[in-house]
């Protein structure tokens, strides 16, 4: 009997640990979000007028001017600089795809518009750092609530836009905080429910949803991204090696972005 109890106890502990470990795995990533997601651009356009942010009164004239400029054929170019979109603009208005990669302790979103369009969402239980460097995409930590990944993002640079279209965006001016609830509305339809708190430019948190679709049968991939905007073109060096050479900006009257 003396031998049986310890064995039984060890069995119970092992069972509890294995169940606990199993639960931990399930909790880490209960839903399959991996793959290439393409934004629902038509819905983005519907949102432009259907759900506008609660801009502060002093911000409204700026927004109205940007809308008027676009209507006049002189759009302000929110994304002309080749910097990362920043948060929350990436999720709000990008027309390009991103790839979602789930690995232990983190989710990584890879974009394709330049060489470093990337979000990391830490799911390993860490807290936000106490004094982080500010970045365009901020610092994101996430946790699973059932099949919903809840993501908190802060430490975003004040220059990051809150953009409602590619021609209308206002810098957040500091202290912005974004909470996202990412979930699958359908097996291949990802919804990002965002709540954007930006006390310098909004009177209240702005809630909006963006939709992304996955097409597993079409084997889409994100492509290599660079944003040299014609600054470099293929050429040769003095040895005849194939290199990229500097290209004078738009001697041909190129129509691309006016900064």
């Amino acid at each position, binding site marked *: 009997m003396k031998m049986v109890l310890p064995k039984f106890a060890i069995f119970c502990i092992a069972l509890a640990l294995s169940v606990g470990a199993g639960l931990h795995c399930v909790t880490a990533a209960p839903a399959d979000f991996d793959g290439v997601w393409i934004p629902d651009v*038509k819905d983005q356009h519907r949102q432009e007028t259907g759900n506008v942010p609660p801009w502060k009164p002093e911000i409204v004239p700026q927004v109205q001017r940007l809308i008027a400029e676009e*209507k006049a054929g002189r759009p302000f170019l929110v994304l002309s600089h080749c910097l990362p979109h920043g948060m929350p603009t990436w999720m709000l208005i990008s027309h390009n795809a991103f790839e979602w990669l789930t690995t232990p302790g983190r989710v990584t979103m890879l974009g394709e*518009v330049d060489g470093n369009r990337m979000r990391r969402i830490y799911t390993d239980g860490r807290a936000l750092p106490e004094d982080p460097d500010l970045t365009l995409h901020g610092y994101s930590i996430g946790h699973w609530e059932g099949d919903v990944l809840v993501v908190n993002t802060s430490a975003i640079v004040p220059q990051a836009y809150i953009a409602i279209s*590619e021609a209308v965006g206002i810098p957040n001016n500091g202290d912005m905080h974004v909470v996202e609830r990412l979930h699958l509305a359908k097996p291949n339809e990802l919804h990002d429910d965002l709540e954007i708190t930006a006390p310098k430019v909004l009177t209240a948190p702005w809630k909006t949803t963006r939709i992304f679709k996955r*097409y597993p049968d079409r084997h889409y991939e994100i492509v290599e*991204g660079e944003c040299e*905007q014609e600054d470099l073109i293929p050429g040769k060096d003095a040895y005849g090696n194939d290199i990229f050479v500097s290209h004078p900006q738009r001697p*041909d*009257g190129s*129509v691309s972005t006016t900064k």
Partner: protein
Amino acid sequence: MVSPKIACVAASLLLSFGGIAAAHHSGAAYDMEHPRDMEGTVKTVNWTNPHITFVVEADAKDGQPAQTFAFEVSSPGVLTRSGWTKRSLQPGDHAVFHYAPLRDGNPGGFLLRVKLQSGQELSFSLQPSDE
């Protein structure tokens, strides 16, 4: 040579393009309501973000001198998923270009589709159809 499948996809993508502005930045500089056609030869391909551009030398005809057009189009990612490669349109290719002209009257615009001499049509869609 383009496969019939790709041509069919391009045609259906074109149909789904209506009403969507230019990718990556606002298309307000272009007159989407009054598209035009021109014929010419590709001079330069800039396969880059945020937008690809093609520089095209327009055919001299009706006493008009040759003119250089600059066409902007969507991004490498969008065109790749629409069946293009970096080599779909190359310097020296002669084609018919269907485009939304620049509102300021300069030669150029936002490229909507291309018909190559082979008969192949190239188009794109920001968003795949759900078919």
